[in-house]
């Protein structure tokens, strides 16, 4: 069963409704590009700077539909309350796994359910939440032609288990997540920075890392300039 290709048609009307309030907003075109709130601007554009009190949507958008099928049932049967939130937003199935069960779930998905290709490992930072990071695994199965997303929520400093022993490709992907977010993967064979220089401090994709921020000491020592900006 191919959820990805079968579902979107049913989903579309809902999505359009969901974006209704945004469309009805601003007859005046000045908001075409609302200023980047975080980006420092040379000259703050006054006219559109205060975020316009957008017409509040009368009702919150309907919650995304549940993801139904044999896979959620099988996973629920196997892992009980360790797996939850089976949803199919825009026809894309995703679910949440408790941190301590993540490795078993991945193993089961690979060995029993045929998800033999790990597409992506990445993270999202939610600084306001207690569990500050979502670690996202995108998995694909060649036999089922199906793509699913698995989410693990972790606190800052918690170490999710590395899946390199299940998928070799996780090696670099986890290194990148570590490099950008500082999420350490327990059991990773070679957890080093990958894109940033090895001695860099700070994790650039965290939300509290400013867009112009950098490791000044590193820049001064290695590039011989005062600042990269």
């Amino acid at each position, binding site marked *: 069963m191919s959820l990805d290709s079968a579902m979107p048609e049913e989903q579309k009307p809902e999505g359009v409704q969901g974006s209704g309030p945004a469309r009805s907003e601003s007859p005046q*075109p*000045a908001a*075409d*590009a*609302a*200023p980047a709130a975080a*980006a420092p*601007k*040379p*000259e703050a*554009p006054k*006219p*559109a700077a205060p975020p316009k009190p957008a017409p509040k949507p009368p009702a919150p958008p309907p919650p995304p539909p549940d993801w139904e099928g044999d896979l959620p049932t099988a996973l629920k049967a196997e892992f009980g309350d360790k797996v939850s939130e089976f949803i199919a937003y825009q026809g894309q199935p995703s679910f949440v796994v408790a941190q301590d069960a993540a490795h078993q779930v991945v193993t089961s998905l690979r060995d029993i359910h045929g998800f033999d290709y790990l597409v992506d490992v990445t993270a999202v930072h939610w600084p306001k939440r207690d569990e500050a990071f979502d670690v996202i695994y995108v998995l694909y199965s060649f036999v089922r032609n199906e793509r699913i997303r698995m989410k693990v929520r972790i606190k800052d400093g918690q170490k999710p288990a590395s899946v390199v022993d299940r998928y070799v490709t996780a090696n670099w992907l986890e290194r990148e997540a570590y490099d950008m977010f500082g999420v350490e993967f327990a059991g990773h064979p070679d957890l080093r920075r990958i894109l940033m220089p090895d001695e860099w401090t700070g994790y650039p994709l965290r939300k509290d890392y400013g867009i112009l921020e950098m490791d000044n000491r590193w820049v001064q020592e290695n590039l011989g300039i005062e600042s990269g900006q």
Partner: protein
Amino acid sequence: MKKLLRKIFLADLLEGLWVTFRNQDPKYIVTEQYPFARPKVGERYRGAPRLNTNPENGETLCISCDLCALACPENLIVVGWERNAQTKRKELVNFTYDTSRCMFCGLCEDACPVDCLELTQDFELANYSRDGAIWDRQMLEEGPKPARYKF
């Protein structure tokens, strides 16, 4: 046997040479002779920026709406304007455009409601200094004047 003969007579290499030989035909030459001949670029080419003026009286078309500055992902356009006390209209005072940071994406051009800001077919943007890459209103209205050399 045939294979051996091919090997001895270097047939595969000769075939390749024959292809090269066929391509000697001058009708396959597409090299552009820049700077002797300026290549013709597409009509929609996104090159040097220009602020268009009204051809009749030379007044700028810009209405100082700041839309281009807002649309630009690189925040490199600064529109300086003053409100004219009599007509209550905004008047363009200065306009700076930093070509060194521009990525010629065309979003500013799309945003301009009056066809004032335009990316033209000029592509000679080289400069001797970084400051020279920051264009002011005069430069934007007159267009760049790259040196033309005689050879």
